[in-house]
């Protein structure tokens, strides 16, 4: 029997599970860098869930989806609306999270229906347009969403047995996000090997052939869309609770969708481990490495004034170079899925009819 995960990802997971058990590590890191890994990592985990969601559509099924942040936002706002003390519902977080998943899955289905008629790049644009419509809608119906303010504050989840304060102690959210990530990871592993998962890959490889083999490609694509939407909604719901706020429409814009896509591409499309690695590198760069280096630059008296003197000012150049170099040198990503690797390295002849 082969192990569920390649062992290196097991090590990574073990290290992440164990990290909060050793407060000394956290303490030293904090004192060295003025940043807390424990606070930043849950955000990374949630982002990883979002990336795994996008991977279902882009990685497995091979459809370009540029609006995943929209679903992330809808999830966040559903949880926000249902749990905030501003509103009359004041629902239990877990129930609200379930509703968020149901709502996003349904909207994913709705978006998928017209998208079925479209191919390739047109589909990409429709998803992009969808993401923007979500952002505008959140912004423009303040009676429901509080407009650009974001709904805040949101109460933390209630979990039997956990008495610590969720806002000042990082550990509850750390373990919540990590366990949801692990569960998603495992479920996707099962899904990949199920009939559905294999059918998705068949569509990616050759849609016409898949159709000829009797697969109902429309229904399969729809399933991919709604599964991705549901997972993104799950991540969004937890995100809102962690931020104690739905933050605002700008947190769910096109840039976020593109950022998730970059993580996928860097790590390896269709490869769960790769996606996690991609998120770790890019999210880590933005939210952990950049602030730390900028902090050092600032305290050493450099990095004042002009934007190019700040480390984070070079962020887009770094991202851009990473994408270009990866595509040239290793288009299958850093940790590729074996099947994708074969496809990407296979030199295609110019497409013919």
């Amino acid at each position, binding site marked *: 029997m082969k192990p569920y995960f390649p062992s290196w990802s097991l090590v990574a997971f073990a290290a992440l599970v164990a990290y909060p058990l050793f407060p000394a590590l956290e303490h030293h890191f904090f004192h060295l860098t003025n940043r807390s890994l424990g606070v930043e990592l849950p955000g990374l985990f949630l982002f990883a869930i979002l990336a795994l969601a996008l991977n279902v559509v882009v990685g497995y099924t091979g459809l370009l989806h540029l609006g995943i942040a929209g679903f992330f936002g809808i999830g966040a706002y559903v949880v926000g609306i249902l749990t905030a003390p501003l509103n009359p519902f004041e629902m239990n977080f877990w129930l609200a999270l379930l509703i968020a998943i149901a709502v996003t899955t349904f909207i994913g289905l709705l978006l998928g229906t017209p998208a079925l008629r479209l191919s390739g790049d047109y589909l990409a644009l429709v998803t992009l347009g969808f993401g923007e419509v979500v952002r505008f809608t959140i912004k423009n119906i303040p009676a429901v969403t509080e407009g650009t303010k974001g709904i805040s*504050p949101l109460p933390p989840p209630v979990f039997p047995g956990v008495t610590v304060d969720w806002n000042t102690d990082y550990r509850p959210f750390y373990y919540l996000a990590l366990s949801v990530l692990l569960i998603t990871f495992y479920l996707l592993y099962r899904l990949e090997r199920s009939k559905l998962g294999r059918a998705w890959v068949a569509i990616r490889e050759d849609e016409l052939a898949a159709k000829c083999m009797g697969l109902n490609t429309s229904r399969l694509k729809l399933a991919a869309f709604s599964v991705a939407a549901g997972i993104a909604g799950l991540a969004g719901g937890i995100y809102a609770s962690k*931020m104690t706020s739905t933050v605002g429409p700008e947190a769910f814009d096109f840039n976020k969708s593109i950022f998730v896509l970059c993580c996928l591409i860097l790590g390896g499309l269709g490869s769960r481990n790769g996606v996690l690695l991609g998120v770790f590198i890019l999210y880590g760069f933005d939210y952990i490495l950049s602030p730390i280096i900028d902090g050092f630059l600032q305290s050493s008296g450099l990095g004042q004034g002009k934007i190019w003197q700040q480390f984070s000012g070079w962020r887009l150049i770094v991202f851009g170079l990473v994408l270009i170099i990866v595509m040239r040198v290793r288009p299958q990503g850093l940790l590729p899925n074996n099947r994708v690797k074969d496809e990407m390295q296979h030199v295609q002849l110019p497409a013919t009819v």
Partner: protein
Amino acid sequence: MPIRILPLLSIIVLLGIGFVIPMPANVGKPDVIRIVSSLPRTGSARGQTDTIVAGIRLALHEIDYKIQLGDKTYRIEYLDLDDANAAAGQWTAENEISNAVLANRDPDVMVYIGTYNSGAARISMPILNKAGMLMISPANTAPELTKPGAGARCEPMCYRPNGEVNYVRVVPTDDLQGALAAEWAQDLGAKKVYILDDNETYGQGVANLFEAHARSIGLEILGHESIDLKAAEFSALMTKIKLRNPDLIFFGGTTQTKASQVLKDMVKAGMDKCKFMAPDGCHEETMITQTGADIVVPGRFYTTFGGLTTDRLSVGAGKVFVDKYTELYGKPPSEAYAVYGYECGRVAIEAMRKAGKKDRRAILEAGRSIKDFDGAAGVKWSFDENGDTTLQMMTGSTVQMVKEDGKEVPHLRWSKDLQPRTTTK
């Protein structure tokens, strides 16, 4: 299945490292007090926050970064944290949470100066409230952060999970600014007003308050609309407004949220007689450079500011501050918020002095009960029971041509002090 030695080994090593590293006691440095500020240091608000930080540093520089509490002298370390990141170009919830948690966990941090954006304050206020730390904002003007009844059902109590006030601000809130702006608009001769806002917390807030007061003093409101921040131009919108023929357009927003584009398109649509008024988010010289000297001519652009602007300070009791600032940095403050940065620094120092010991609880209580404080503007003020300043000064500024190197250059200059009318209904 082959045994994978390397991964197994690394698990053992990791566990080992975890056990071997000793846990230091979390007591901090006994002779250091830290003050942190959390402001957007990346992105377009940088110019404003640069001067706020300079103001804070000036206050700390005056006491040579040392403070005597009881019989002990502490060194003050100041940490200038960023609540924005390059990815977003503005404040983000992630960064603000990190900053608040950082301040909370570091036992040497006694005072948290921030935030710049009211939205960010919503996120860090509950965390710092639980930590019992004094939070002083130099720039948040949204009334609902402190004033009961100004916002939604649970505000402001939901920002205070402990039930006590830990958040104070040295800047007057928008309910005053919106009202005074409306009265000033009337004084300028406006009868018909069109209101625009940027659809953001701050801008929309001021615009709504402006609208409410303008109605009550009898101005005719022709319309109120939000713009889309990402739009490049507003010529169609301005065409529509031109049909209603307003005397004045009030724009609730900031220089970063397209104020200059709205003004440009107003003139472009042919409304060159119409006046344009904006709140303190547009009170910066950048507004003039971004819009261009040919558009920002005298008699067209008006802006209000909560408190006294730099040039108003220099002709009054606040000259001391401007002189000190100029001496340390070689030039007078370029943006008006500098004085509030300075005020925050001084309030933090005063709170620590009054408390007399390095203790968050004592400093918090001393800070929020500050009364009759000698403000940098030369006026005494106190914190009221909500943590708001009793300072009720507003300045109206407009554009004047100033001779500079033989050329006439437009600059924002103080026009009048705005006082609430005594005979409103």
